[in-house]
């Protein structure tokens, strides 16, 4: 009798409060993840402060400056009238980069240029971790306040993917603090391997280029200036080189890290056409524009890796994949160019821990 009443009661309670119970369970899971994200965010901030103290020898504690930095934001240009939106975005990003550089110079006056670049990257990783934390906390608190299942579900459903990204950015802290190559550095490594010690010179903002001779072809190789953490301005470098050669460039190959699909192996190489470059699209636009205006075919070599590898210290499989990518680039050159041609190869990506 008692048992039957209990079961009936439980059924009635579940009938009316099922959604609320489900919401509370999800909120609890979000809360556990949020605590984990907070630890990552705090670690990011602490690592940045310690690295600034170590490399920059500031006169005062940089913590307030770091706290101000990780709250920095960028407002994207309006795209209702799309004409010229890339230039507007490029201009805003230039201001952002300039501001970040100035902030780092003020925070770490004694740091070398490479160390400053690494500190800038480190602070950017901390900034991203802080943003992730604040957005998830916003949805958590809003869900808790309203107990609206749809608000709670939104964040609950995408939480596993977000956690994966957060863990990747968290791994980036060690890489940028110590100047260790990351998964995204595969492009610059391939470029450096092709250059094999050939002399290089500055061709655009934080972009180096050198020349080699391969099977009767003239190959111009460009990459960001290392070993400090920088992606440079590959679009500007390619635009400069293509115009400097005045129609002599017969082929343009970009080498970059690319996201792998589940089931694909880390370090798999894929060849294709187009500009292999990520980011907001400004540099990609410049490369495509230079190639189209000068009628240069665009080839791409992608080195596959997971989201967790992109900003984490370089794994063995990816280091080995750079040799395969070098062979792939050489194969493309032999297959699609003739002796006497001029070819541009661009190693796209962050050059942290990679020299020329």
């Amino acid at each position, binding site marked *: 009798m008692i048992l039957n009443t209990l079961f009936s009661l439980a059924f009635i309670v579940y009938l009316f409060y099922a959604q609320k119970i489900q919401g509370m369970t999800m909120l609890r899971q979000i809360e556990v993840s949020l*605590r984990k994200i*907070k630890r990552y965010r705090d670690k990011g901030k602490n690592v940045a402060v310690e690295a600034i103290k170590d490399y920059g020898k500031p006169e005062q504690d940089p913590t307030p400056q770091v706290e101000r930095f990780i709250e920095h934001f960028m407002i994207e240009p309006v795209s209702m009238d799309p004409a010229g939106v890339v230039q507007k975005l490029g201009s805003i990003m230039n201001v952002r980069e300039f501001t970040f550089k100035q902030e780092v110079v003020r925070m770490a006056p004694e740091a070398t240029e490479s160390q400053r670049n690494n500190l800038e990257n480190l602070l950017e990783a901390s900034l991203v971790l802080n943003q992730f934390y604040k957005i998830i906390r916003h949805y958590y608190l809003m869900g808790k306040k309203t107990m609206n299942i749809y608000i709670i579900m939104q964040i609950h459903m995408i939480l596993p993917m977000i956690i994966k990204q957060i863990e990747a950015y968290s791994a980036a802290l*060690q890489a940028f603090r110590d100047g260790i190559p990351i998964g995204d550095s595969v492009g610059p490594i391939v470029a450096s391997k092709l250059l094999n010690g050939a002399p290089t010179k500055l061709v655009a903002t934080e972009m180096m280029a050198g020349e080699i001779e391969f099977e009767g072809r003239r190959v111009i190789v460009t990459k960001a200036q290392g070993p400090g953490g920088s992606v440079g301005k590959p679009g500007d470098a390619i635009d400069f080189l293509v115009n400097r050669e005045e129609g002599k460039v017969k082929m343009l190959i970009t080498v970059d890290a690319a996201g792998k699909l589940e089931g694909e192996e880390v370090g798999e190489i894929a060849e294709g056409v187009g500009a292999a470059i990520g980011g907001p699209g400004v540099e990609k636009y410049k490369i495509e524009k230079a190639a189209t205006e000068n009628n240069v075919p665009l080839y791409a070599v992608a080195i596959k890796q997971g989201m967790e590898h992109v900003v984490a210290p370089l794994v063995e499989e990816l280091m080995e994949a750079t040799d395969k990518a070098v062979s792939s680039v050489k194969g493309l050159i032999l297959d699609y160019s003739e002796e006497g041609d001029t070819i541009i190869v661009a190693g796209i990506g962050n050059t942290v821990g990679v020299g020329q």
Partner: protein
Amino acid sequence: MADSDVGPLAGATQNWTTLALMVVVGAIALASLYMGFTNYGEGNMETAFMYILIGVSGFVAIGFTFFKAKPATKTQDGPKEVEVVTTLECPQCNLKRVRAFQPGDYIFKKDEPCTRCEGMMTVTRINARKDPKEKKD
């Protein structure tokens, strides 16, 4: 950022609440098992089965909560740092040496004298050491 923002995340009370809940569930489960076996002895099979089911479910729930709580304490200090190694090669005598990564190392750096010949060793690889426990993708 003000710490009051993270007020709802205060961990200590949450742990005590979970513990108290586990004690209550444990007591009910124990009582249910007792009732179950008593009814079994008296021959009331249907009632005994229901009580035993409730009791076992209670203990399973406690076990599950305890099992789930374990990894959370492990990651208290955030993610672990990986071990990174630097490989140096001498272009003259092909001597290869692998050592722990030192800040300042970078790929294609040439500043370490070769221990076998007069040449300078070049950093050819910097990579994270593979974790033997890591699952293959």
